[in-house]
């Protein structure tokens, strides 16, 4: 007897008296064949979460199993594309259904008709193990797509096609495994979204992800293969920060997951990324980007899946040996989707109505980041940068707290900084990075020992200012002695001239590390020289009158990124003016 729907409650559908299904199996629900996934089995009921709207489903409608887990099609055509939470191509759906998304769409995830220029590298007689490359093709102008043997298969090559143009489902290599089974390898493979793709060996992440954002690169760096969380209430600039990172960070591939966010934001990403030119390659950003858009009004179960879809795509490109960065905006929406479905299943809630398995799901997700020797014989990495939207801007809520446990970088966005339009509104007192020790060697090697010294100088200033501000809040700044006033003045330069960064300014939106270093050097030089003035009991107003403070604050705009030699003039100008006061 065919299996049929018994009960419906929101996205949760139940089937009675069946032994047909297995956990996490992908199923088709109803006459429109909506995609669903089995999430619970008892002897009486099988529970399915449905990835599409369930309006109009009836008891008695058919439910059909697929005998595979929820999986993705992996192959060329992922880049420069936009998918929904379960890898359906939104542009194709638009062609099929118009501006509003229809249900039960059967469009193939990747284009099956496009011809790719394939170079076959495998030869008859070769032994290929799981993850090894058998062919390559240019996916976009800057990214070479490597076709890899699915991780769980290995064997001897029995047949290869010559180089040439092939479409997605053409068989180009045949592989005979040790049991004599012949596997036909095409341009694509499938992989279940909830299972991490295997690697040969995990490595310690020792190279920073350079983002061109000063507060991140200098004070709170994240490594390639690291994890970072960006928590912040609404309006503090989480999305803006994610956009900046996606645009400028030096990863090879960007996977941008819009999980339960705004539709207009996704259209902005689409538009901006296609207009923006990557400075390294001179090609549009979309050439290295794939977008997953499950906006807040799209079905909630697909929102839950979108995070896994994103990370699986990221791992696939990592396996080719690329450094991949995945931006998940926002993981709170994903946690809420978990909560919503858990509530429909009438599970016992833990904190704030979230299910008790929230921490384990979060850790499973963040643990999929990392730098590794991959099976194709090179190295690759996945960096996860997850935005968190704490309810009521309260960082003590479960999602923020649990995320904090499983990530090693914490960029806390601050409401009062955002109100003063200090962007990126990353609070330097609450944020931290645990990657310093691993990364210092890299900074020393590439930018000299001074970089780390300057960084310590800058953070010491900020901490000292934080302490002084406690006093200033009570009694005003006029009563402070001059040496402390100087700290406040210099810290202001650090805040306004260094930490604050203008994403809309052509030079300031991305600042190379060398310039970051020179900016710190100049500010600290000004501090050291001014200290000598204050030590002579000369009032600080004398320095203020020289206009040096304003001049140094505006360095970020006044010195273009390609004219770093101008810093020498600034240093000598400081010396000249300070010497003038001292003499």
């Amino acid at each position: 007897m065919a299996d049929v729907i018994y009960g419906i409650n929101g996205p949760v559908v139940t089937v009675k008296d069946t032994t047909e299904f297995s956990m996490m199996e992908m199923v088709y629900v109803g006459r429109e064949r909506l995609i669903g996934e089995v999430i619970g089995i008892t002897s009486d009921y099988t529970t399915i979460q449905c990835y599409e709207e369930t309006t109009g489903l009836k008891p008695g409608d058919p439910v059909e199993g697929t005998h595979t887990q929820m999986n993705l099609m992996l192959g060329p055509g992922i880049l420069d594309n936009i998918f929904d939470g379960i890898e359906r191509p939104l542009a194709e759906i638009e062609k099929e259904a118009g501006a509003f998304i229809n249900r039960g769409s059967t469009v193939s995830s990747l284009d099956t008709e496009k011809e790719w220029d394939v170079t076959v590298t495998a030869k008859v007689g070769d032994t290929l193990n799981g993850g090894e490359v058998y062919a390559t093709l240019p996916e976009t102008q800057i990214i070479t797509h490597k076709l890899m043997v699915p991780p769980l298969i290995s064997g001897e090559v029995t047949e290869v096609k010559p180089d040439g143009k092939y479409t997605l489902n053409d068989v180009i290599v045949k592989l005979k495994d040790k049991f004599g089974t012949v596997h036909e390898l095409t341009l694509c493979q499938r992989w279940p979204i909830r299972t991490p793709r295997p690697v040969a060996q995990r490595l310690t992440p020792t190279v920073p992800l350079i983002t061109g954002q000063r507060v991140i690169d200098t004070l709170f760096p994240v490594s390639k293969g690291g994890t970072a969380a960006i928590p912040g209430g609404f309006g503090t600039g989480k999305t803006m920060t994610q956009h900046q990172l996606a645009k400028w960070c030096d990863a090879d591939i960007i996977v941008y997951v819009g999980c339960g966010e705004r539709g207009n934001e996704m259209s902005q990403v689409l538009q901006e990324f296609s207009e923006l030119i990557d400075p390294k390659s001179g090609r549009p950003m979309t050439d290295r980007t794939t977008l997953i858009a499950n906006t807040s009004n799209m079905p909630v179960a697909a929102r839950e899946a979108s995070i896994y879809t994103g990370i699986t795509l990221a791992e696939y490109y990592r396996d080719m040996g690329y450094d991949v960065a995945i931006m998940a905006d926002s993981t709170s929406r994903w946690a809420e989707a978990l909560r919503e479905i858990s509530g429909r299943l009438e599970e016992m809630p833990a904190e704030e109505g979230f299910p008790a398995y929230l921490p384990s799901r979060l850790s499973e997700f963040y643990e999929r980041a990392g730098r590794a020797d991959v099976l194709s014989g090179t190295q690759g990495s996945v960096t996860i940068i997850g935005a968190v939207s704490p309810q009521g801007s309260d960082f003590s809520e479960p999602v923020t707290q649990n995320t904090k446990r499983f990530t090693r970088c914490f960029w806390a966005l601050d409401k009062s900084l955002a109100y003063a339009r200090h962007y990126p509104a990353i609070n330097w007192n609450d944020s931290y990075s645990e990657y310093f020790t691993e990364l210092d060697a890299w900074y020393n090697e590439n930018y000299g020992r001074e970089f780390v010294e300057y960084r310590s100088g800058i953070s010491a200033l900020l901490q000292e200012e934080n302490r002084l501000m406690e006093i200033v809040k009570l009694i005003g700044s006029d009563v402070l002695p001059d040496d402390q006033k100087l700290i406040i003045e210099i810290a202001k330069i650090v805040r306004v001239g260094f930490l604050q960064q203008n994403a809309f300014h052509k030079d300031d939106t991305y600042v190379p590390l060398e310039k970051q270093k020179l900016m710190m050097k100049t500010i600290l030089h000004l501090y050291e020289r001014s200290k000598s003035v204050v030590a002579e009991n000369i009032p600080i107003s004398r320095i203020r009158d020289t206009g040096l403070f304003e001049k140094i604050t505006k360095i970020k705009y006044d010195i273009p990124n390609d004219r770093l030699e101008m810093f020498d003039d600034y240093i000598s100008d400081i010396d000249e003016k300070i010497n003038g006061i001292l003499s």
Partner: protein
Amino acid sequence: MIIEYVGVKEINGSLVVMDGVKGVSYEEIVDIRLDNGTVRQGRVVQIEGERVVIQVFEGTRDISLDNTSTRLTGHPMEMPLSPEIVGRILDGAGRPIDGLGDIYPVTKRNINGTAINPVSRIYPRNYINTGISSIDTLSTLIRGQKLPIFSGSGMKHNELAVQIVRQAQIQGADEHNFGIVFAAMGVKNDVADYFRKSFEEAGVMQRVVMFLNLSNDPIIERTLTPRCALTTAEYLAFELNMHILVIMTDMTSYAEALREFSSSKGEIPGRKGYPGYLYSDLASMYERAGMIKGSEGSVTQIPILTMPNDDITHPVPDLTGYITEGQIVLDRGLQAQGIYPPVNVLPSLSRLMKDGIGEGFTRADHSDLANQLFASYAKVIDARSLASVIGEEELSDTDKKYIEFGRMFEGSFVNQGFEENRSIDQSLDLGWKLLSTLPRSELDRIDDELLDKYYQGD
């Protein structure tokens, strides 16, 4: 053959449970006929085999276990639509209550709508001039945006909404393709009257569709009101190519209705008793704002919500803020000082503003000026808290200037008349005038070039 089911099995709040129902589909609409001849509508909200839970829109009063007969209609909740709907007044479930007769539908639409494909959206960047300085300059409203007003009981959010409607000038829109959809959820009769009168006085009534669910109307109907309104708005915008401004008030009442429904259904509550799906539910409405390819029209939303106890971290404003593209926050302290509109500019924000202002839209100096006003006003707050400890006399000269700047900013920039319509140039120039009272060295957010051009201080 149409089957009628006699009687119900359980009644709980606005929900009835029926047994032995065959062939029912999820979210289907049913007609429930009572013995006394009245007919009520309900919606299927849960199915378990032949046991069906139905939500009755008009409430379950008078329903007993055996005095009903129920008929399935075979379709989900639909809204009848035609171009004639403009100018009409309807109840919370979309039925005419202005005595002008039924609407003859040209088409019918499922009120739940479907999600707009992100690929098909046009990124909104056309600004709407509201003539209000604090909004135009600091949190600019963009066509296709959803920008809520966060207010509190007793504050002048209704006046502000009316002023926006009256003064809003949309580029390229005229009488024929500009319309307003107004949805009142659980508001007092007086408030509904105020809006009606104001629309009449402004001469826009023939361009308004009003949906009224007053505070004594059935709760469940309230959960339909915004959906009926937005379905109408989408039809007018995307099929008749009109520019539609949707005003929804009060979203807090809507959320409370949803909470009542959820708890009577026995669902596990999330924060403050609101259902766990409140975010998805609110999003399914707010996300219906926007512009799509292939249509000239647009849907712009101004939802109004009252923050219980003026608490911006309450779940309703909190979740709203995460979905909408910014917010305009009203402040009781400012209102007490007689400042109208009492917009607290620091927490107010328009996310789409950055791409809709500047050269070609408003003026080249707009962005820098706005940033500087925000930054300077934030310093005013710091100076004030210091002054409250050590007294204004003891402040440094710069801080004193900030205090003075703050006074003028609130008194002449934020404050403006209910009838006063300021052009964008007027607002920007006023901003420069205020900034010029501060020393030039304090203006660290503005390019020197612009300072040379606009700064008037010494």
